């Protein structure tokens, strides 16, 4: 017997199937949780996949120290509510322990530095699979990555050595020291995520909705929230704008967009009309070069 399935059901079914494959195939998986909408959706999907049992993995947050306080608050509330384990490792500690050079400049982004902390936490707990909320529509190198993406012991992605991945069959076999990055919502777009959040009535950190914020305008015209992490000088002008965030990364590399969107419906309408892509509008880290994401992935980024 068949039922006509909505596309959101199909995407949800696929994601739950992938999460259960992780649980079935790996000894020590982890779910990378950033406090952003994509990883919040992953937690929601994991509840559907494993309740009434506990998650067969902890949540892992790589804390850059440049987080939005609202996202941290949300994270702690969520973990308490669902009663799952949370492991937090701080980039600050990695910088000290490994004597790394901290990020510089006016907007000192620790985006690249978090790879060190991520690889350390994988080694510390011997994680063999890390579930992430990356989507193929975000970026063209991500559009090429498998759902089960095998990384060598240095965490590196080798696009030329990707395993064939066919049907519903996911090969998670690895040697000791290697790990697999798993992306259950690979096939979701930004709009799919919002439609799903709306349908499932998922609560989000309030910075996704419009609010007043003191911002500085960058040379390329992006709005960066003023915070203690920015190194502003006399030439910078601060203005207060009505903004919201399309992605929630670090305060130092995630730009806000001007918005009047109070509700999820408002956001969905805004995205439908938006002419700028999600990462294009908000991420400074991708602007460095055409292959910025590919290069970061090759060195262990998720």
């Amino acid at each position, binding site marked *: 017997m068949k039922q*006509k*399935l909505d596309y959101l059901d199909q995407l949800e079914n696929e994601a739950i199937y992938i999460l*259960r494959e992780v649980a079935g195939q790996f000894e020590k998986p982890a779910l990378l949780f950033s406090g952003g909408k994509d990883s919040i959706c992953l937690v929601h999907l994991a509840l*559907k996949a494993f309740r009434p*049992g*506990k998650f067969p993995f902890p949540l892992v947050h790589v804390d850059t120290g440049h987080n939005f306080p609202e996202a941290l608050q949300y994270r702690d509330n969520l973990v308490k509510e669902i009663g799952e384990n949370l492991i937090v490792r701080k980039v600050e500690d990695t910088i000290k322990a490994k004597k790394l050079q901290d990020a510089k400049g006016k907007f000192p982004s620790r985006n690249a530095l978090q790879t060190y902390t991520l690889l350390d936490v994988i080694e510390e707990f011997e994680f063999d699979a890390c579930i992430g909320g990356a989507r193929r529509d975000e970026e063209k190198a991500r559009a090429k990555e498998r759902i089960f993406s095998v990384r060598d012991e240095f965490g590196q992605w080798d696009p*030329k050595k990707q395993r064939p991945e066919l*049907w519903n*069959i996911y090969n998670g076999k690895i040697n000791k020291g290697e790990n697999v990055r798993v992306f259950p919502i690979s096939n979701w777009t930004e709009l799919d995520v919002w439609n799903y959040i709306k349908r499932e009535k998922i609560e989000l950190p309030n910075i996704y909705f419009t609010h007043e914020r003191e911002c500085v305008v960058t040379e390329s015209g992006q709005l960066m929230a003023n915070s203690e992490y920015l190194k502003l000088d006399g030439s910078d002008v601060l203005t207060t704008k009505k903004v919201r965030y399309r992605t929630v990364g670090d305060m130092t590399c995630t730009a806000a967009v001007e918005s009047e969107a109070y509700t999820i419906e408002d956001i969905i309408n805004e995205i439908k009309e938006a002419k700028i892509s999600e990462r294009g509008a908000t991420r400074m880290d991708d602007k460095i070069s055409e292959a910025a994401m590919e290069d970061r992935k090759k060195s262990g980024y998720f």
Partner: protein
Amino acid sequence: MDLLRFFTAGNVDDGKSTLIGRLLFDSKSISTDIIETLTKQSKTKGIDTDIDLALLTDGLRAEREQGITIDVAYKYFTTPKRKFIIADTPGHIQYTRNMFTGASNANLAIILIDARNGITEQTKRHTILSAILGIPHLVVCINKMDLVNFSEEVYNNILLDFNAFAKPLQLKDISFIPVSALAGDNVVSKSDKMNWYAGKPLLEFLETVEVKENEQNNAARFQVQYVIRPQTTELHDYRGYAGKVFSGSYSVGDKVIVLPANIETEISKIEKHQQEVETAFENEPVVIHLKDDVDISRGSSIVKVNELPKLDKEVEATLCWMDNAPFVPGQKVLFQQNSFVTKGIIKEISKKIDIHSFENIESDGTLKLNDIAKVIIKTADNITYDNYKTNRNTGSFILVNENTNNTVAAGTIG
């Protein structure tokens, strides 16, 4: 709104990436910042036409440098009628395994033919691979019609050639559309230069084609992915089998058999997202509870007593070899069919298939990268399966090298 997954195959020169770029561009699925980046890149590459749409899908540095597609790129777009997932796959024979990856989940294939060249080796290869994978719909786009003066005669000749070639493949559903991807004729809107063509432009075709699942039979198939056992005081005896209904449906009270253990029992409860439901339908992820406390683990199948699948330690299959290292006779492999894994060995390579003519060639006992062959596989444990033609989920498998852990082959049973 429903979902259509399709794949495109073809050479760069056939204009495959351009066609996808055109679908995304004309359906307004590309953001302005990405168009800006592309315009910049197209100019640096010395391309005069507005923008090089192929740069949209070639996401890796090596691909942009060489101007070829090496691996599958997934692209997404939505119209008011449908959501689409495109697997843009390489055309070159060297990357056949990547084409297989992109095509395996597709419900529709777009085969591109350059109107100036007609059917090529590559057209044949892609059509034959689509037939092996049992893709339900095939759309043949005859591209670059602008370069043959939009000639109906050229189109008709290619159509005749194609039908003659494809006849032995027994494809279920083939359609033909004359297009010019570069200029946009018959891609999103109907071309005024080819009034002799009465059919739909490509996008409208994609929006309206009925999404046929491959499965012909509705026999109920379910494999256990993971056993949920909370082991808390309140849920001390809870034991639920989590998995996806591959086909058919299951209801509370159904008499079932657990395979390969061959234990008969009854479904006592079905949960979907923690809600009890009476029936679980195709594609739904559910948790099934059984009346008797039997020993079931990951990879076990739960089937209905009156709809039994096949059960055997030896299967005949069509295999595509995907590893750079050739097959070593006697080599032990892992046989993986969804969540079921057992040891196996390729017992016999009966014959090879010429992927340009679909003719059988005598086997020389070797299997090299991208070879397609009829084989007999022997496994350590009983496999619960159906023929691929009747069930894409329970009729497909991969072979994994125990030493390197690589996926070395993909196969379809029957």
